[in-house]
């Protein structure tokens, strides 16, 4: 049995019991009896009192009952609990604040994070004694985590500090990742005293308050000596629907219009019907006329969880300017409340920039297949210059162009700009040319990358190519067995996609993939700043943007209306992160007296974090941590003690009445 407020109980006992005993002597109900003389009686009592100072503390049923009543009440004040949960060591409270913890299971509107905080509060009170007058010999640290972990209260025996830290935890929209929280706890729990013996490092008890939907369970294990106690939060069987993908695109045939696509998921055990609405710049444009039936989730052949999915698309609509497109799920009123517990992923925002035609500068290699291809692209401007002209122009050479295509050209240096280099190796850090090699076939490629959209390199055969050793932060997009064939280097103001062979030394000009790749690469490089806007970000990412030269201050407005001042770096880039909440973030600055804005959409998409039915247990490596729901729902004994006190009081009343009766 543990006492939550032992000091309070002791103080109450010290305050109440002595006065009772004193009152007992002072206010003892005595029968009045007349006698001939008190002479002998006084002497007799004086004799006894002189010889036995405690003779008045004789057995007395009334006093005994009253003392028992008071003891029961005092014990109730000390708040005994039946569960032996208190510990004297160090405890780390891990509270999941990820997006799924926003789910509201109960009708009272309390979110799972609220429930987790309440359970953690009870646990802290249990460990540290709780209450203002309580005390304990344990220490508690509080860590809040989603995809990042944050210490909200270091190891301390101060219950008030820990409770305030727990109360101050706000929900975030990031996904749940346990490993950062574990590593943070380990860092604080490790003894740094080299002289201390190993056994001096007391084992730390980890206590997790979460719905158990953790994204990194597969890669997380507990170390030797670590113990994790998992207290699940949330109602079993809860379902959720949300956006898994939301995308917008300007069709090539009509860049003035926008087509919107979305994919919906359902993690519940029953199919759900929902409508989707679309709003452009805050004005609802359309609602799907028929509800979309999202099938129920199921378990795959390997036992994996497979959410139900459904897709929706909106017909292209005219939007010649940039646009903020917001999609929202409108659940059918027939659906049960538990079918969609999480509202965060019911909305998705897409920022679509205005239609833009690129300006391309081609350096070297006049004519040829590449020249014909570039002339066939829908560009605003295409210029061709020689390498000498390029080098002579210096830093001004790239001014006014979105993309520079190096057609077998190798200038001495590359001024600020975005380059697509064919054949000769671009002079940039990270591209180390080890000479020419013969014969290569593409063995692997990052087909998910935007530049490989509708590109298949299986039939590409290269006769001669340059062996380039990729340096730091160089991304290999496609490679042969002997080395990379297509690379990407981002050096801030200079970005280069390097093709390590001349297309004429391969069969690529004969393949359709050559056209698609070149178009994709130029489009990608030309809109690289807007790419983030189009693709959108997720909570936990960092917002980065290039701002025009001369801009000294950039204001970032968060979805909740708060504003943050950012200063651009030397390369003209601003960065802020990690993003905590989903929603539209807006960067704004003033240039030449005009305010310019750039919006960034941050969405909490995907079924992984949208899965809201709590896990019954966690599997960490080969260890299964069972959920201990209600474990901290300790058995409070004070109501029982109060009941005992009332019964004793009743008995005392009966005894008193019998004695007082004539």
């Amino acid at each position, binding site marked *: 049995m543990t006492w939550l407020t032992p000091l309070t109980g002791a103080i109450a006992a010290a305050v109440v019991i002595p006065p009772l005993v004193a009152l007992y002597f002072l206010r003892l109900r005595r029968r009045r*009896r007349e006698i001939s003389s008190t002479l002998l009686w006084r002497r007799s009592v004086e004799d006894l009192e002189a010889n036995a100072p405690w003779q008045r503390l004789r057995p007395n049923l009334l006093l005994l009952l009253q003392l028992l009543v008071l003891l029961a009440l005092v014990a109730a004040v000390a708040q005994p609990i039946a569960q032996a949960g208190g510990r004297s060591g160090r405890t780390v409270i891990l509270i999941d604040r990820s997006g799924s913890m926003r789910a509201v299971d109960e009708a009272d509107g309390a979110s799972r994070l609220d429930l987790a905080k309440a359970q953690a509060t009870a646990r802290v009170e249990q460990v540290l004694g709780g209450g203002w007058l309580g005390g304990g010999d344990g220490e508690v640290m509080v860590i809040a985590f989603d995809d990042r972990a944050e210490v909200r209260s270091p190891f301390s025996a101060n219950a008030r500090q820990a409770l305030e830290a727990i109360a101050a935890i706000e929900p975030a929209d990031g996904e749940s990742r346990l490993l950062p929280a574990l590593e943070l706890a380990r860092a604080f729990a490790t003894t740094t005293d080299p002289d201390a013996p190993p056994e001096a490092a007391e084992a730390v008890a980890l206590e997790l308050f979460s719905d158990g939907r953790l994204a990194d369970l597969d890669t997380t294990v507990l170390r030797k000596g670590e113990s994790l106690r998992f207290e699940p939060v949330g109602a079993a069987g809860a379902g959720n629907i949300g956006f898994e993908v939301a995308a917008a695109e300007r069709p090539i045939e009509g860049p003035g219009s926008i087509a919107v696509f979305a994919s919906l998921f359902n993690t519940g055990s029953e199919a759900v019907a929902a409508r989707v609405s679309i709003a452009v710049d805050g004005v609802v444009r359309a609602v799907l006329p028929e509800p979309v039936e999202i099938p129920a989730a199921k378990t795959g052949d390997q036992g994996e969880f497979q959410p139900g999915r459904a897709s929706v698309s909106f017909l292209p609509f005219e939007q010649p300017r940039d646009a903020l497109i917001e999609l929202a799920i409108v659940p059918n009123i027939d659906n049960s409340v538990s079918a969609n517990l999480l509202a965060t992923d019911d909305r998705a925002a897409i920022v679509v920039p205005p239609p833009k035609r690129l300006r391309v500068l081609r350096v070297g290699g006049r004519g040829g297949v590449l020249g014909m291809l570039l002339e066939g692209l829908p560009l605003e401007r295409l210029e061709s210059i020689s390498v000498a002209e390029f080098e002579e122009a210096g830093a001004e050479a790239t001014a006014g162009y979105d993309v520079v295509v190096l057609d077998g050209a190798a200038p001495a240096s590359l001024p600020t700009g975005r380059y697509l280099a064919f054949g000769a190796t671009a002079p940039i850090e990270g591209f180390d040319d080890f000479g020419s090699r013969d014969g290569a076939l593409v063995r692997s490629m990052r087909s998910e990358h935007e530049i490989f959209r509708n590109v298949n390199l299986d039939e590409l055969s290269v006769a001669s190519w340059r062996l380039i050793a990729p340096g730091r932060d160089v991304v290999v997009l496609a490679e042969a067995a002997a080395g990379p064939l297509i690379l990407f280097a981002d050096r801030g103001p200079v970005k280069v996609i390097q093709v390590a062979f001349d297309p004429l030394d391969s069969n690529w000009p004969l393949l359709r993939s050559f056209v698609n790749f070149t178009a994709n690469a130029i489009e990608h490089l030309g809109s690289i700043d807007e790419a983030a806007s189009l693709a959108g970000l997720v909570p936990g990412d960092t917002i980065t943007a290039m701002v025009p030269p001369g801009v000294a201050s950039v204001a970032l407005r968060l979805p909740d209306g708060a504003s943050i001042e950012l200063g651009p770096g030397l390369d003209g880039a601003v960065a802020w992160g990690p993003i905590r909440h989903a929603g539209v973030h807006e960067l704004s600055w003033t240039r030449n007296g005009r305010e310019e804005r750039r919006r960034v959409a941050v969405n909490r998409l995907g079924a992984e974090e949208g899965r809201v039915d709590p896990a019954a247990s966690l599997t960490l490596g080969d260890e299964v941590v069972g959920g201990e729901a209600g474990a901290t729902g300790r058995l409070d004994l004070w109501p029982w003690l109060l009941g005992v006190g009332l019964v004793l009081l009743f008995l005392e009343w009966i005894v008193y009445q019998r004695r007082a009766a004539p």
Partner: protein
Amino acid sequence: MSDLGSTRPARPQRIDDLIDGALMARLDRLDVVSRKIFSGKLQGERRSKRRGRSVEFADFRPYVHGDDLRFVDWNIFGRLDRLFLKMFLEEEDLSLLVVIDASASMAFGDPEKFTYAQRLAMALAYVGLVNRNRVSVAAFGGDGVSRLANLRGRAKTREVGSWLLGLEPGGGPDFAESMRTLALARQGRGVMVVLSDFLLREGYERGLTYAAGRGYDVFAMQILAPEETDPAGHDLVGDLRLVDLEDDSEAEVTVTPAVIARYRERLDAYCAALREFCVRRGIMHIPIETTRPIDELMFEVLRRRGLLK
């Protein structure tokens, strides 16, 4: 559970309540005896056979504790090895003074101590009257000393009875001053019988010294109620607020077996001290419990103790 302070027994209302005919008939055979030789001022009812002598040998009786050793017949002791007292025939008139303690403390007990004292005084006075002794009755209490003096003859029985019936216990006495007053008012030597519980806060020593110092043959009859001798047997236990009947002082006492035992020790010691005091001054101490019948007291105890014959 009875509260003795609130349920007092009824007091005698008539002389017959004090002494009935049957008892009077039996008491006719008794007479008061003094352990001392007295010289009365008037001629007594019984004359001496040998003129010129004031007293005449009458009888022997066994020696009891407290008797004056000067009256022991040493010749009989030499022959029988037993102590006998020589009893003298009272030739002159014998003065009998019966003093009743009428303080509030006497209004206690069941039977009540004061009522018992009234009856005993009536019986003693009757014995004195029928033997033509000079009988006086007196009472001391909160109102001081009252007295009915110098009565003689059976005809005064009613007067004595009426006077006794008119007494009411109350207040706290000044025992020493009362005894001094009575002793100084003495006419002739005689027998003084003091009926009291002797539970006196200021002590009994000075009062009894006054009484014994004036030549009386003093009998101190200590009347105690059964509630005083055996409190535990009369529900005097538990958490009590004891109220003194004389001065209304209160004592909060939790009466436990230990307290009862201590009280008994105290009472025994108190009575022993009284008896010791009396012996030293030639006073006959006779403890009496109110449960003892009057006739039994008269015919057995007082005869054996030498007050009556």
